[in-house]
């Protein structure tokens, strides 16, 4: 006997917007969550609240003004953004910075990794309702901010990279002060790692929330600590060995659990690893000449060609594509692909099956950096139509 009648039972879903008023970090992103009772059945990621047109702005400004403009793509990862862009220019110009400059660049970038990872762990503590821990971590984060101020001249906006080197040098006194700050910071980070491992509140809220399997992480091209938390050993510092990463020893931290807790633990371990790298770099800082090039003597026009540089930012692999036409003082095209772009937009699958209260936790564990995301609307002038490229197509995920 065949089927004669199909009865469809409608699933009653409620549409619940999480955001756009800072669902995780204080940045605007909208998670439209459809829930059946408490359980999430579908999630959509809507961005576009923070579009500033930086890539277009880069085409309108000179190569050297762009170094400071790309640093403002994202406040918290400004040194890696400018480092990646500057290295793309160096590949075109065939300039190599000296060893001291390469070490100082690594120092600036690792300081940034330390304070970024501490920030997102603090925010995670706040999201799970543990505000005391948030304040404690933020207080200790001030130490690395101070170290960054000593090195670069500003707590957050480093503006440290320039073609052919860095923009200021450190002397012995500064070196000792930075080392003292890092040595004071290290036991605190170890302590916070222990709190994250042992505290009941955190374990109850984070373990088994937002699990990403290794296969899912690779098929959706997730990068950075999110992929490493799922056991994928991906790190451009190891694969590219740019700057001084070929000389400074470090381990790539991976965890196999794949849940929110594993991602946060990867960040704590990377913070410790970064502190060790900074101490090593300060210890072995080479003295092969002046790392600060004279900015007045740098070439104004970059030879014709295209270059592609990538860097391991705190949130994952960050890439810059620079196209030069060889005539103008402005770049013809600058294309930025940020790690949050992959991680946040391609991760809507992760929320399905979670309870509603766990959604902010899962989102925070991705370390979203919204100001990096959202790029394109295509306007066809011939047909006079507008077409919005879907974020999935842009991020290159499988349909």
């Amino acid at each position, binding site marked *: 006997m065949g089927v004669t009648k199909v009865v469809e039972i409608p699933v009653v879903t409620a549409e619940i917007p999480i955001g756009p008023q800072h669902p995780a970090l204080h940045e605007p992103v909208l998670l439209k969550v459809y829930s059946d009772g408490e359980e999430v059945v579908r999630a959509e990621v809507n961005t576009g609240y923070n579009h500033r047109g930086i890539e277009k702005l880069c085409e309108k*400004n000179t190569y050297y*003004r762009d170094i400071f403009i790309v640093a403002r793509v994202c406040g918290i990862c400004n040194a890696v953004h400018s480092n990646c862009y500057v290295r793309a220019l160096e590949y075109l110009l065939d300039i190599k910075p000296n060893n001291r400059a390469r070490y100082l660049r690594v120092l600036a970038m690792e300081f940034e990794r330390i304070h970024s990872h501490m920030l997102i762990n603090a925010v995670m503590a706040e999201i799970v309702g543990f505000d005391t821990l948030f304040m*404690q971590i933020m207080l200790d984060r001030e130490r690395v901010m101070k170290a960054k101020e000593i090195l670069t001249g500003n707590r957050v906006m480093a503006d440290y990279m320039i073609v052919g080197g860095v*923009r200021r040098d450190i002397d012995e006194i500064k070196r000792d002060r930075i080392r003292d700050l890092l040595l004071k910071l290290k036991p605190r980070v170890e302590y916070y790692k222990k709190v994250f491992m042992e505290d009941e509140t955190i374990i109850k809220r984070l373990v088994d929330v937002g699990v990403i399997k290794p296969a899912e992480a690779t098929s959706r091209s997730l990068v950075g600590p999110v992929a490493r938390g799922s056991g994928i050993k991906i790190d451009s510092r190891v694969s590219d060995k740019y700057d001084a990463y070929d000389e400074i020893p470090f381990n790539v931290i991976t965890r196999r659990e794949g849940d929110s807790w594993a991602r946060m633990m990867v960040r704590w371990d990377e913070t410790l690893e970064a502190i060790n790298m900074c101490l090593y770099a300060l210890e072995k800082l080479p003295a092969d000449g002046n790392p600060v090039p004279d900015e007045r003597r740098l070439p104004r026009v970059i030879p014709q060609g295209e270059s592609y540089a990538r860097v391991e930012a705190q949130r994952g692999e960050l890439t810059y594509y620079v196209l030069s036409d060889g005539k103008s003082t402005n770049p013809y095209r600058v294309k930025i692909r940020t790690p949050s772009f992959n991680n946040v937009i391609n991760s809507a699958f992760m929320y399905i099956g979670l309870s509603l209260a766990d959604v902010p936790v899962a989102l925070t564990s991705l370390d979203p950096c919204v100001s990096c995301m959202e790029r394109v609307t295509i306007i066809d002038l011939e047909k006079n139509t507008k077409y919005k490229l879907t974020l999935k197509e842009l991020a290159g995920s499988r349909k």
Partner: protein
Amino acid sequence: MKRPKLLELALRNLVRKPATIQYPREKTPVEEDSRGVQYADLTKCTGCTLCALECPADAIKMTPIPQGYGVPAKNPRKIYPLIDYSKCVFCYRCVKICPVNAYTVTNKYDIAGPTRANSEEYSLSTLKKASMQ
């Protein structure tokens, strides 16, 4: 029930001085050489406009030096860079690019106030000082 892990820390913090800095009354400690307000020393400036061209934030506008100031002969166009600090991002590109090293750097950071801060007073005061000597 287990003892909370942060209890010891919380007790220690009860007797410690607060970490919060009461900002307007109490200044935040900054480094000697941290990047703060910068302005052109008009006794050195030649009015070449390079800093205004290079500024990534378009914060520098070349402005005529007002009447009554003794302008050095090396500044024939009698203009000086006026920095709008509300636009400035303090990247110090102008400081590094200046061909005559005319910029004076400070670590002053508290420029927020009821009026728009710019470098007019700082820059013109360098000319005043020079004329007094």
